[in-house]
């Protein structure tokens, strides 16, 4: 079917004889301004820089191009429990301290190699700490809102939270979904034996 015909069908109205008005159907959750998150523009820049270490620009865009920092700020503010917020924010300070201790500089002034070295070390530490706490490894790629305030589950290492947020915010972004992964808004059909060759990208969803 041609796209034009589809649009015609979409536009087709249904004759309605109605008493009473419409209320808000699917409720639109409004955009969250940064000022409501407790994070500053500088924080967002820092988070973007950190995200870029986890998902760097290669031949495709990285975390900074997707502005993951801003979405991370919103998710931490609204989807995290107070305990996780505390863990996450203390973690950012911890990263700053480690930068100075190990390289004598602020995180933002480290070279790309130094940042990667630091984060790979933190990633190893985080995995060990989580393992000791009985936290599964796949937590990194699961949803950042999985903790409830009344949960009695142990809190993951702060670096795991940073990595999880980066991956989630990046791969659900327009940049991540369409420029790094593949996305087709209206596939139109299903092919259960679609050809694949190594290097082809995954579907975003």
């Amino acid at each position, binding site marked *: 079917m041609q796209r034009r015909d589809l649009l015609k069908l979409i536009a087709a109205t249904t004759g309605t004889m109605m008493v009473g008005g419409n209320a808000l*159907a699917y409720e639109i959750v409004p955009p969250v301004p940064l000022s409501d998150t407790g994070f500053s523009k500088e924080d967002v820049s820092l988070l973007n820089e950190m995200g870029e270490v986890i998902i760097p620009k290669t031949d495709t865009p990285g975390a900074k191009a997707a502005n993951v920092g801003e979405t991370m700020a919103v998710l931490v503010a609204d989807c995290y429990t107070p305990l996780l917020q505390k863990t996450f924010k203390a973690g950012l300070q911890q990263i700053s301290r480690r930068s100075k201790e190990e390289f004598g500089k602020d995180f933002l002034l480290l070279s790309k190699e130094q940042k990667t070295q630091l984060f790979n070390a933190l990633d190893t530490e985080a995995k060990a700490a989580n393992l000791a706490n009985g936290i599964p490894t796949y937590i990194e790629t699961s949803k950042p809102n999985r903790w409830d305030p009344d949960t009695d589950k142990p809190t993951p290492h702060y670096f795991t939270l940073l990595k999880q947020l980066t991956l989630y915010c990046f791969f659900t972004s327009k940049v991540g979904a369409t420029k790094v992964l593949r996305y087709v808004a209206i596939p139109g059909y*299903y092919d259960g034996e679609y050809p694949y060759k190594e290097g082809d990208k995954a579907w975003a969803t």
Partner: protein
Amino acid sequence: MANNDYDAIVVGSGISGGWAAKELTEKGLKVLMLERGKNIEHIKDYKNAHKEDWDYPHRDLATQAMKVDYPVLKRDYPLNEKTYGMWANEKENPYIEDKRFDWYRGYHVGGRSLLWGRQSYRLNREDFEANDKEGIAVDWPIRYEDVAPWYDYVEKHAGISGNRDGLDVLPDGIFQPAMALNCVEKDVAARVKKAFKGTRHIISGRTANMTEAKPEDGRTSCQYRNKCWLGCPFGGYFSTQSSTLPAAMKTGNLTLRPFSIVKEILYDKDRKRATGVEVIDAQTNQTYVFNSKIIFVNASAFNSAWLLMNSATDVWDGGLGSSSGELGHNVMDHHFRVGASATVEGFDDKYTYGRRPSGFYVPRFRNWGSDKRDYLRGFGYQGGASRNGWRKDVAELGVGADLKDALSEPGGWTIGMTAFGEMLPDHANRIYLNKNTTDKWGLPVLAMDVEIKENELKMRKDMQQDAMDMFEAAGLKNIEGWDADYAPGMGIHEMGTARMGRDPKTSVLNGHNQVWDALNVFVTDGACMTSASCVNPSLTYMALTARAAEFAVEELKRGNL
């Protein structure tokens, strides 16, 4: 005719209410359809239907504030940003959990027809006879043959895609071409069939997603976006809005009134007939009376029972239909959240295109044919195979380009399936009015006292083990069985609270879905089910509603109502 007089009133606008409105208006009756919640107009009000993941401020995640507002919904998957506002407000509409009960309600025009799973299966011959043969609860007053032509009828209009698989356990119907199994599912299906000598089948799911357009109804076929729950701007799946409401509106005989909470059915005890309903306007709190010759109660299983309990209480303490002692009892759901997953080797040069809003189905094989278990009835599986995307775990990678590359490419194939088991009707599983607690409108609320019992618990062991055995027999790897625990209600298939039967002493409804004590009141939603089968029930509600509507109109003409 005065403004408040109609031939028929339909209470509720979900799957069965929409069918009642369509059938009754097409037969020439002037119908008033009452819906307790807001209106949602087809296409126009599907505000999120063209949004992408990145358009949501929280990327579809439930916030902590949403979790506070929806303490029940947050227990499982339905609480998210995309469908926010499409589930009943839990603060305005409380209920009491004597035992944990997860009640997921859609209080708006279309009800849960906008939010359903769309899997559509017929009950089989045995499903209608099992109660009688096994001495469970009461016998269905009807048999498969009574419903079969009505399955045909509703399948044609609703648009069900599926294969004619030729299995007695899962009767074939009038289908559009099926949504295909993918290469891995086909391979596993062939291996399972061979290993179990043709007694276990993996077939294409039969779903109310169309594979052929219905231009005459303004509906396009499924576009494989898998965004059904956002309301489909293509009309690709069956909902009240896409299918039954436009048909009813076309007749010019329908009046739809949103924000109308039906408080009680008005009952004339001398004539033993209902005369109409009393309604509270949910926005203004004003009350109205509407009169009609017949009433179809399609408020969803629990709310239909609530309405009966709240009606004719001057005649029966327990309300209309309570003379049987069964109103609100015999609550059933499908128990699930148990199954298995596995990895599949090979097929590295194959992937999928399109987001299929369905999967495979494994029809019941337990206690079927010569199979005999230490429990009654059985279960089916729903599942699918796919290659993991960016959410796959790559534990050995740290940060940087290697991680990015690894997550940007699909992983290997995995397959999983979840069992849906039949729950036996049990008088002890009940809901009742709790008059000490009221909702926003001062109406008494329901209390839930439901649990799964020995038969279900025994069945769950097979539900997990059989899934593992089938994957094992198919030569799959890393097989993991799981039981994520089930609480009644999670299946969102509430049934049985006003069951059909042959005797007014033991059932609320007769074989035409009439309330024994008020023959012009018909209940045709999940409340009417005498047993649950293990298949998804909505198609049966559609068929029973169309059948009852024809009978109601004939009875009206004969002057019997």
